[in-house]
C-alpha cells in the first residue's frame, strides 16, 4: 500500500492558480491594491480593502514571523495522523501577506515554536508546484 501523502492544492484552481504557478519557481506571489495599498492574500479578483482598486502582483522574499500557532496532537487525516505532534501556524510575511502553513526544522514543536519567532520560507517540492513551509530563521 502507498504511504499516505500530504494533500496538495489544485494548481488549476481559478483564483489561486497564479500563486501556485509562482511556487513552481519558488516565488511567493501576492497582490496589493494600487489604490488603497491593502495587501490581498490569497489571490482574489477584487481588493478586499476598497473593493474597486486594481490589484498588482508582487513577490515576497520569504522572511516571516509566527502570528499564532498550535501544535496538533491528534489528527484523523491519513497523512497528518502520522506527523503528530506538528505545528500549524498563521505566518506573517514581512511584506504583509498572512498564510497558513507548517513550522518545520524544529527539534521539538512543543517547545521550539513561539509567537513572534522569525522564520524563513522553505519550499517542499512536488511535481506541479511547491508547498511554502517555514523554518526558524
Amino acid at each position, binding site marked *: 500500500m502507498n504511504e499516505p501523502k500530504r494533500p496538495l*492544492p*489544485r494548481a488549476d*484552481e481559478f483564483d*489561486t492558480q497564479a500563486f501556485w504557478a509562482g511556487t513552481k519557481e519558488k516565488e511567493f506571489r501576492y497582490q496589493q491594491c494600487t489604490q488603497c495599498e491593502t495587501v490581498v492574500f490569497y489571490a482574489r479578483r477584487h481588493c478586499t480593502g476598497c473593493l474597486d482598486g486594481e490589484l498588482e502582483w508582487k513577490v515576497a522574499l520569504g522572511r516571516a514571523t509566527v502570528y*499564532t500557532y498550535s501544535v496538533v496532537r*491528534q489528527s484523523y487525516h491519513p497523512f497528518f495522523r502520522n506527523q503528530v505532534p506538528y505545528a500549524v501556524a*498563521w505566518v*506573517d510575511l514581512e511584506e*504583509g501577506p498572512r498564510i497558513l502553513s507548517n513550522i518545520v526544522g524544529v527539534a521539538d514543536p512543543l517547545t521550539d515554536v513561539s509567537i513572534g519567532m522569525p522564520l524563513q520560507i522553505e519550499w517542499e517540492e512536488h511535481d506541479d508546484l511547491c508547498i511554502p513551509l517555514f523554518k526558524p530563521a
Partner: protein
Amino acid sequence: MHPAENMDAYAGMTLIANYAMVAHRHMHQYGTTSEQLAEISVATRMHAMRNPEAVRAMEDLEFLDIRETTISDVVNSRMIADPLHLLECCMISDGGGAVVIASPEVARDCRKAPVWILGSGEATKYPMSGGDITTSAAAQSGPQAFLEAGVTPGEMDIAMIYDSFSITVLALLEDLGFCPKGEGGRWVEGGRLRFDRPNDGPALNTDGGGLSSNHPGMRGIFLLLEATRQLRGESTSQVADAKLAVAHGNGGMLGSRHAAGTIILGRD
C-alpha cells in the same frame, strides 16, 4: 474546490487547531491563561450536572468520570491542540430542535408565555492579512442586535454563547461587549458565569452548553431553546426572575472564515 481551501488544506490544521490558534494569540496579546479559559468549562459542566438530559447525554456518549469539574481538572486534561485541552472541547453528539415564531397576536394567545425577539444582528469575517484573529464577527453582529433591542450587555440575565471550545466563549463575550477586548480572561475569573451568581452578570449556557450537554455540529438552536426556557422559568439552572437573554451563534470557524448571529430575547 473553494479557493481558500486550496490555500490551507495542505497544512493539516484540524478543527480544534483552528480555535487553538485564536486561544494562543489571545494569550500572547492579552496574557490570558489556561486557568481563565477553564472557568468556562467548569461553569458549563456545573450547569450540565444539574440538567438530567445533559447527564444522560454524557452517559450515552460514555464520558469517563461524569461529575462537576475544577479548573485543575481542565488544565490537567489531555492536550488536543496546544493550548486547548480535552475538557475545553465540546462533545460530539446528535441533537435537534425547533422554534415556533409567530406574530404578536398569535403569540399572546398560546399555551406558553411568549418570548419576544427584541433585536438581531448578523455578520461574517474572514482571515485578513494583518487582521486580528482574536476578534470575531460578533463584534459587528452584537452591537447591531443590542442597538435594535435598546438594551445593553450589562442588562443581560442569561448569555447563551456558542461554546464549541472555551476560547470561543471568551472571544465572543468580549466581542458582544460584556467586557473590553482582551479582558475576558480576568472577567470570567472566580466563577462569575455560574447561574447562582446573578449579581455578577449573565449566567452562561445554563443547559450545560456544547461543552457538556450536546453539540451536533451546529447547536445554535439550543441557544434559543435554553434562553427561552430561562425566560419562562423552566431551566434546570434557573436564574431567578430572568428577563433578558442574549443568544449568539458562531458558524464556520472562529480562527478563519465564520459567520455570526446575535439574538436578544425578552419576556413581558
